[in-house]
């Protein structure tokens, strides 16, 4: 089978294959033509479909998000690039007060098939306004489905699934998993079918089986957790690693089953610590697996500070393989609950 490196081409291929047979798909956003939305999610579409269907917008997030809402309500399926998720602030009203709510508020009248694709994450020195993850912000709002692929296979299949969804879906592609030559790459080359396929929402993937603890992660934190699990294995600690794949819907069943099996849970998140993914996942796990837990659920996330620029500062706040390893180790060593 054909091998692919990274999410970017996989997502672009999914859009291409859907555009080829769905005339209603149009791509909107900044730099989506020559630059493939900078992080490659729309690369190759402009030469094939031209400016009629691949539309560079002015730098007007509020307006192009609003245009997506309007276009979706009368029959198009806009695929919108939000270049960096950090730029959501400039278009957020149209997203959270309209895109996420119009279907519900209209009593089911207004369709909202919109797919937003955005680049997330730090680790390459782009500082506080270009390194955030922020999926928790969107997951908090009822009305968005939240997709966070960690592999190229999932990226293609989940994008295909998003493009067939009648609801707003936001795909968060981590920059260090895109596979583009100008950024570090922490993923792996993998086999990705050339034909169309979908990966269902709400199904977490158990990336590694284990007995001693469960590590829950999404996006870049998945390969980092897997690397940490390898080191733990060398010390005889068997870690199960779960890749959430979608935050909304969230696969509670897989999480709870794993927590019941291992009794120890570490949640690893690149978003800010408080009021976000880690707290939500912990809540759902304890609700379903409290009696099986041998220790309080632990979490590792960005410790409620903006992402600083300088390398030693940035490294201190984004969870690393080393810190995942340390947190997992201390959790396994923790006293069992009375």
């Amino acid at each position, binding site marked *: 089978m054909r091998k692919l490196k990274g999410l970017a081409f996989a997502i672009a291929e999914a859009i291409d294959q859907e555009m080829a047979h769905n005339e209603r798909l149009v791509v909107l956003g*900044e*730099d989506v*033509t*020559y*630059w493939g939305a*900078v992080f490659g999610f729309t690369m190759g579409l402009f030469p094939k479909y031209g*400016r009629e269907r691949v539309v*560079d*917008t*002015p*730098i*007007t997030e*509020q*307006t192009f998000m609003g245009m997506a809402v309007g276009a979706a309500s009368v029959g198009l399926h806009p695929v919108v690039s939000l270049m960096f998720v*950090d*730029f959501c*602030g*400039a278009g957020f009203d149209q997203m959270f007060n309209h895109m996420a709510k119009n279907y519900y508020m209209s009593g089911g009248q207004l369709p909202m098939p919109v797919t937003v694709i955005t680049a997330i994450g730090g*680790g*390459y*020195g*782009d*500082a*506080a*306004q*270009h390194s955030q993850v922020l999926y928790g912000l969107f997951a908090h709002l009822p009305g968005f489905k939240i997709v966070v692929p960690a592999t190229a296979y999932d990226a293609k299949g989940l994008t295909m699934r998003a493009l067939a969804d009648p609801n707003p879906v936001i795909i968060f592609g981590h920059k260090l998993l895109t596979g583009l*030559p*100008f*950024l*570090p790459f922490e993923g792996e080359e993998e086999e990705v079918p050339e034909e169309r396929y979908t990966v269902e929402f709400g199904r977490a993937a158990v990336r590694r089986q284990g007995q001693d603890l469960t590590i829950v992660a999404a996006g870049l934190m998945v390969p980092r957790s897997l690397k940490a699990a390898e080191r733990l294995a060398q010390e005889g600690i068997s870690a199960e690693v779960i890749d959430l794949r979608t935050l909304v819907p969230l696969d509670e069943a897989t999480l709870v089953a794993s927590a019941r099996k291992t009794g120890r849970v570490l949640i690893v998140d690149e978003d800010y610590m408080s009021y976000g993914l880690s707290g939500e996942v912990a809540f759902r796990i304890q609700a379903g697996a409290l009696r099986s837990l041998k220790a309080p659920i632990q979490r590792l996330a960005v*410790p*409620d*500070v*903006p992402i*600083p*620029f*300088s*390398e*030693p*500062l*940035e*490294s*201190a*706040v984004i969870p690393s393989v080393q810190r995942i390893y340390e947190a997992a180790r201390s959790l396994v060593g923790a006293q069992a609950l009375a």
Partner: protein
Amino acid sequence: MIKPEPSPQDLQYLVAQAGLDADQLRRAYRQLCLIRSFENLIANRYYIGKTPEFNMAAGPIRGEMHLAVGQEAVAVGVCSLLGDGDAVVSTHRPHHHALAKGVEPKKLAAEIFGKASGLCHGKGGHMHLFDTSRHFACSGIVGASFPQAAGAAFAFRKLGQRNVAVAFAGEGAANHGTFAETLNVAGLFQLPLVVVIEDNLYADSTPKWAALSTVHHFQRAQSFNIPSYVVDGMDFIDVYRVAKLVIERARNGMGPALIEAVCYRYRGHFEGDAEEYRTREEVERWQALDPIPRLRERLKTLGWADEAILNRLQDEAQQEAEAAIQFAESSPLPEPQEALMGVFQ
């Protein structure tokens, strides 16, 4: 070039009209050279560790890098009329504005290198440079400068200070809602605000023709009853004479203004940009309008500087920029635990 090159006699008339003397013009030349040297040295250091394979995370300067080579005259033409108490809010391409506003080159360079001795102790980086002693700020978010400068202008008037605020932004940002919203508020409240649109023809990779329904910005500001001017942004003197007029008016309570400065960036949107969206020939055509040789020739025409003086000014600027880079390179990185401090006062 949007205006013809003046004859020697007309040049004397123009500089007299602008109120520029020999000393000011020589200083402006040195400033232009300082910015050019600084940007070229940053470019040079940025590629350390990034060649032959370009990896944004590698080398002594990480992340994106947006340089302003070619756009120096806009920054110096406007900022040489400002004092420390006047506010400037800049963009993701901020070095030329910072240097022109008087930000200490050493601290600026150190921040770009992420060092503890930098303006923001390494927390900000190249797109997030802040210096309250010079009332200088910037943002990596397009369109963010307009309302923040308007806010500073609003405060100056409330506080009874005779200061002005300047918002710099590119023509891409002029499509942002904040541009129109700010112009409306500034016109309504008659704020001491000068909006400077540095129109370099490209928003990232998107050419102006693909993103603007009109080629000009001044018309849009005029629709908010704001006096507006188009200047040759590759000509220090042209920028200066209009900036002087509008800054003095704003300072004297006569309200806001917009300057549309037509200019060009010689380097890519960011370093590593393959520039598929424009031709080499176009870049070369604009090289003929390089603001530094243009001002150099004019200084000679005016008899205000000879080759020896001009070379000395250029050398001084180069040395100052080199000293800044050396300071940055030899400064220590911040301690990791600093990352967790400073969210609140």
